[in-house]
Each structure stands twice: as structure tokens, then as C-alpha cells.
């Protein structure tokens, strides 16, 4: 193999190492982007919706206490707006079912909330239920807690999945950076080996040939330079040798 091909092979190998590392890093970075988008799409929306539902449930609970105290207008106003907020958040969560087991939790929310809503939809002020704390704790508060628990379970499921995806992203980030680091180390080691071989098989023979020619020119010592490789350098050495042999004649 000629010197040009050897040099080309050396640089090509370095380029291939860096190219593959670069391509892999781009692929992994792209995957990180997809994973982040997935977290936002699949989990963050549902977690936010769950938070809104819990807030709405707590407002409804306060409104029921106002009704128990006989404040019908304030209580009903709060109940109406909280119910609207709950329904909006529920719709968001319902349309964003992406994780296994999420649909079951959405159904549980619907079931428990309907039961809760039935309790406070009925008139409370100026009925036997007004001021009836026993009824509140026995039926309303228990229903409120089960609806809240159902929403919390939805949030926990999304939280866990988000954590797992985030851990995956961390692993992907590791996989995006490591090929680069390995490629840099490999390229550095390769450069050292490349330089060592160039020095051994190209530079040193040229120095020896030059020195041989100089010695012949100065003192007429015979030109005897052995070259291991079969490339331009060995051709140069044999050409010089035959030139000197011809000039001696």
C-alpha cells in the first residue's frame, strides 16, 4: 500500500470514529427531545388537570359547609363555578389517556364524583340537612374524600410515569455524551499510534536515506539503507541505491 493510501486510511479511520460518535449523539439527543415532549404531553397535562380537580373539590367542600350554615347564595355560586372547573379539568384528563391503567382511574373519578355531586345537588338550606354536621361527616365528607383519593391516584400514576421517563432521559443523556467522550479518547490514542507509525515507517527511513546520501557524498561510504515496507520509501531507497551504483561505474 502506498504512503498516500496509508495516510488516507489513517485520517479516514479517525473521521469514521468521530462521525459515528456524532451521529449517535444526534440520535440520542433527538430521542431526549422526544422523551421530554412525551413527558409534557402524556403526564404533565394530566397532573395539572388532577391538581385543578383537587382544588375544585376542596372549593366544593367549603361551599357545602357554607350551605350547612344557611348561606345559600354564596354556597351555590361557589359550587357552580367549582363544578365547571372540575368538569373542564376532568375533560382534559379524560382526553389525555396515555398510560396503562389511566382509564380505570378516570372511570373511578367519574364514579366517585357523580356520587359526591348527587349529595350536594339536592337542597340543603332550609331542610333537615342544614346544620346537620352528622350528615355532613357521614355522607358528604366521606364522598368528598373518596373522590379526592381517586384524583390523587391519577396524579400518582402520572407522577410515577413522569419519574420513570425522566430517569430514561437521564440515561439517554448519558448515552448521548459517552460516545463523544469515547470517540475523543479513541481519536487521541489513535493519533498517537498514527504518529508513532508515520515516524517509524516514513520519517525515520527518509532520515536514514538522507543520512546515507550525505555520507556517500562526503566520504564515499556505500549506501546501505534497508526499508521494511513496500511503498514509495522503499522505491526511493532502491532508486538512490541504483543511482549511486550507476554513478560509481
Amino acid at each position, binding site marked *: 500500500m502506498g504512503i498516500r493510501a496509508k495516510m488516507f486510511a489513517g485520517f479516514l479511520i479517525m473521521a*469514521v470514529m468521530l462521525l459515528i460518535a456524532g451521529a449517535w449523539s444526534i440520535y440520542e439527543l433527538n430521542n431526549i427531545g422526544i422523551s421530554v415532549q412525551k413527558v409534557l404531553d402524556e403526564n404533565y397535562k394530566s397532573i395539572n388537570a388532577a391538581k385543578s380537580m383537587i382544588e375544585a373539590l376542596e372549593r366544593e367542600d367549603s361551599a357545602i359547609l357554607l350551605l350547612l350554615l344557611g348561606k345559600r347564595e354564596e354556597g351555590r355560586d361557589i359550587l357552580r363555578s367549582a363544578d365547571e372547573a372540575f368538569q373542564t379539568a376532568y375533560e382534559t384528563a379524560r382526553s389525555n389517556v396515555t398510560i396503562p391503567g389511566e382509564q380505570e382511574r378516570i372511570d373511578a373519578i367519574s364514579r366517585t364524583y357523580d356520587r359526591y355531586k348527587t349529595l350536594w345537588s339536592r337542597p340543603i338550606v332550609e331542610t333537615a340537612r342544614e346544620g346537620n354536621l352528622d350528615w355532613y361527616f357521614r355522607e358528604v365528607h366521606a364522598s368528598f374524600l373518596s373522590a379526592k383519593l381517586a384524583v390523587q391516584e391519577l396524579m400518582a400514576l402520572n407522577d410515577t410515569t413522569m419519574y420513570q421517563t425522566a430517569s430514561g432521559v437521564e*440515561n439517554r443523556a448519558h448515552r448521548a455524551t459517552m460516545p463523544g467522550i469515547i470517540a475523543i479518547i479513541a481519536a487521541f490514542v489513535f493519533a498517537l*499510534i498514527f504518529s508513532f507509525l508515520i515516524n517509524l515507517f516514513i520519517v525515520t527511513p527518509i532520515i536514514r536515506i538522507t543520512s546515507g546520501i550525505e555520507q556517500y557524498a562526503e566520504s564515499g561510504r556505500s549506501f546501505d539503507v534497508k526499508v521494511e515496507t513496500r511503498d514509495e520509501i522503499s522505491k526511493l531507497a532502491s532508486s538512490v541505491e541504483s543511482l549511486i551504483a550507476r554513478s560509481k561505474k
Partner: protein
Amino acid sequence: MRYHIVLRYAGIILLINAAFLLISGIISFWQGDSGFFPLIYTAIIAALFGVFPFIFVPSTEEISIKEGFTIVVSSWILSCLIGMVPYILWGGEFTLTNAWFESVSGFTTTGSSILTNIEALPDGLLFWRSTTQWIGGVGIIIFALSILPSMGKIGMTLYRSEISPLAAANFRYQTRETLRIIMTVYVGLTIVETILLMFCGMDLFDAITHSFATIATGGFSPKNLSVAHYGSVQIETVIIVFMILSGINFGLLFLTFSGKAKTLLKSTIFRTYLIMLFVGVTLVAINIHGTVYGEWGGTIRHAAFQVISIGTSTGFASADSTIWPPFSQMLIIFFTLLCACSGSTSGGIKVDRIVLFWHAIKKRITEIQHTHAIVKAKIEGLTIDDDVLEASLLYIILYVGIVFISGLIISFLGVDIMTAFSASAATMGNVGPGFGLVGSASNFAGMPELGKWILTGDMLLGRLEIFGLLLLFLLKSWK
């Protein structure tokens, strides 16, 4: 020293590694797991590094002992380095230290692991993990020699560094023939064991990986519970048989399979090896019967598996021997130091040196009794030179000394004495599990970082028969 020659031959080793990395990568691709890119990328890097010296360095027929030796040692270290790359790239539990530990443990056929959840690894990476043991088992260098174009003197030069002195006496062949023997026996045993394990109910992947680990006396299992995962007497029996076979000198094994079984039966080393294992199993079985296991069947099954697994430096586990009585633990530690025969894939001091040690004692006693007599130690009719006896004694002393010193350093790092010394002995003997926190049912994950580096040093020292590695650092003063 012609470093370019070392580069050329080390390149062959890298190409062999690249080929196995490629196979592992194909398995990952087939399974669609996350091990594909780490394995393929490493295969490409190994192939590029392996091919490059061929472009520049012309082939040579002559190679000096010093060069041959450097090729052997640097090949082990290079393989360990390239072997850790897919682990680092994959991530998970593999930090830099952990990846190095797992890779060295594989190539030296030690079988100690830092993984707390082995089954979390993708199949391709698990296959590579087992392959490192298989490559290491036969000796990377012997692998390389089987494809080297220029054999002759070069082969024997490289070969001498690989196997301890007595083993060489068992081979009365030329190097090319020796290599053919080793490869035939090695591959043959692997195939037969794989088939038998499949008959016993293992799937192909598990059968291959367990065969790789058994024949190499490595001990890496793709299961968290090792062989105990299967709870099968048939599987354990097959593995026991192949562990015993893998602990025998491969030259003797080849003669046996060629119809010359007498040679094997006449071998003092082989008989001592079998007797020691038998006595070990019997004593452990008596000790654990009634205290750990109620029935004799279970007692003998677990005593045989654990003693033979450690006694052949394999390191598979069928039970947690850390809960066994102290006497059994001490016996197993004795086997951790001793291990099997030279010329096999096992580590440790080896039965050969124990036999030499025994003859040295007998010789000394005779010399004391008969002060004017010239006494020569003889094994199987062969006179053993004094320098061979002296070298064996020196090796045993140095071996125990290194185990003690590294155990001492590890205990200084805050590790309890039992864990520190058994870990040191288990890694030096290329056995795998020790006792305490690094028992057969646990792993080396809890070992301090510095401790892991010391233990990998022990693994390399043990695999390269101590002097192999030490001489690398004394190359300049080696005339």
C-alpha cells in the same frame, strides 16, 4: 523491543473482540434492545484499531520472547479495556470503575460482578458479558494464535507466558497441533454442554451463556440467582460434570476423548484433583447436614455444587454458602486458594503446584534424614528440577502474600475482615464469589471504589500467573 510488532499482534486480538462484539450486537438488534448501539459502536472502534496496524506494519516471522510476552500481557489489558466500552456506553449501573471491574472479571474468567440486577441488562450485553469469559477462558492469545499466519516459533513463545510450567510438559506437540487440540476440546465441550442444558429445559440463550461460563470456569450467569434460578437437579448435574472437566488439563482431556483414557487416569495431578474435590464435598456435606439441610439428597446436591464450583474456580451458585457453618466456609476458602489443574481454564494456585509443594516437603525431609544423599523429586517417573520446585514454592508464597496484602488494604477501607480476605482470595484465584458481603448470593456492588480497582489488579495478577503481569512493569530491566 519492536513495539510495532506488538501493535500488529494486539490488533489481531482486537479484531477477534470486534467479531464477538458484532455477534452480540446482532443479538441486540434481533431482540430490539438498548444494547445494540453500544455493542456495534465498540465493535467498529475495536475493528478500526485492529485493522490499522496491518496497513503500516509488515508481517514478520521472527518474534522475541520479550515481544511475545508483551503481546500476551498487553492483549489481556487491551481486551479488558475494549470490553468495558459497551458497558460504559450503555450506562445503568456501569460507572467507569464498575465497567472496568465487570470487564476484567469477564476476561480473567473470575465471574465476580458489580451488578445488583443482572436481568435488567439487555440480551446482547448479557451475551457479550458471557463471551468475555469464553474468550478469556481459552486465553485470548491462544485464540489469536489459531488465526495467526506465522506460527512456528512465535506460537510457542507466546504460549509459554500463558500456561504454568507443568502444563507445558503435558503437551508433546508442536504449537499448531496444541492449539488445534485446545480449540477442539474447548468448542466441543461448549457445544455438548449447550445441548445437554437445553435437554434439561434451558432455552438456547441461557444454555449458551451458561456453557460459555462453565467451560471458561467463569461463573457469569444471566440470572440474578445464578444456577439457583432454575432449581433443577438435572441442570446442576450437567454443570457439575462440565465444571470438573473444565478444571482438567485440556491436553489430557483431548487424549481421553481420543481413546487414551489411561493417560488421564495415570496422571498424579488429575487423581489429586479428584480426590481433593471428593474429600471437600464429603466434609462439607457432613458439616451442613442437619445444620443447614435436613435431607441427605439436598445436602449432597448443594455441597457438591458449591465445592466443585469454587474448587474449579467457576463460581456459579446453587445456594447461599455464606449461611453455612464456619468449617464449610473455611474449606471453601481453601478451595478458593487452590482451584484446579494447570492447562485448564481455572485460576488459583492450582493442584500442580500443591503436588510440587508436597514433593518439595518430602524431598527436604529425606535430605534431613540422609544428609549426604542427593535427593531428586519425581512425579510420574519424571525428575523435577530444583528450580521448578523452588519456583512453585515462591509462587505459592507470593500468591498468599498478595492475597493477604490486598485483603489488608481492603479491610483498611472499612470492609469487614471476612469480606475483605475472601474477596481478595476469590478474585486472585479467578473464582468469583467470596464470603460476607460478597457471597455467592450477593455481589461486589458495595465494595469501595478503590477496593474494586485493587481486586481487578488481583484478577489480572491471578490470570497472568503473577510474574506475567509483574514482568510487564520490569520490561526495561529484562535482559
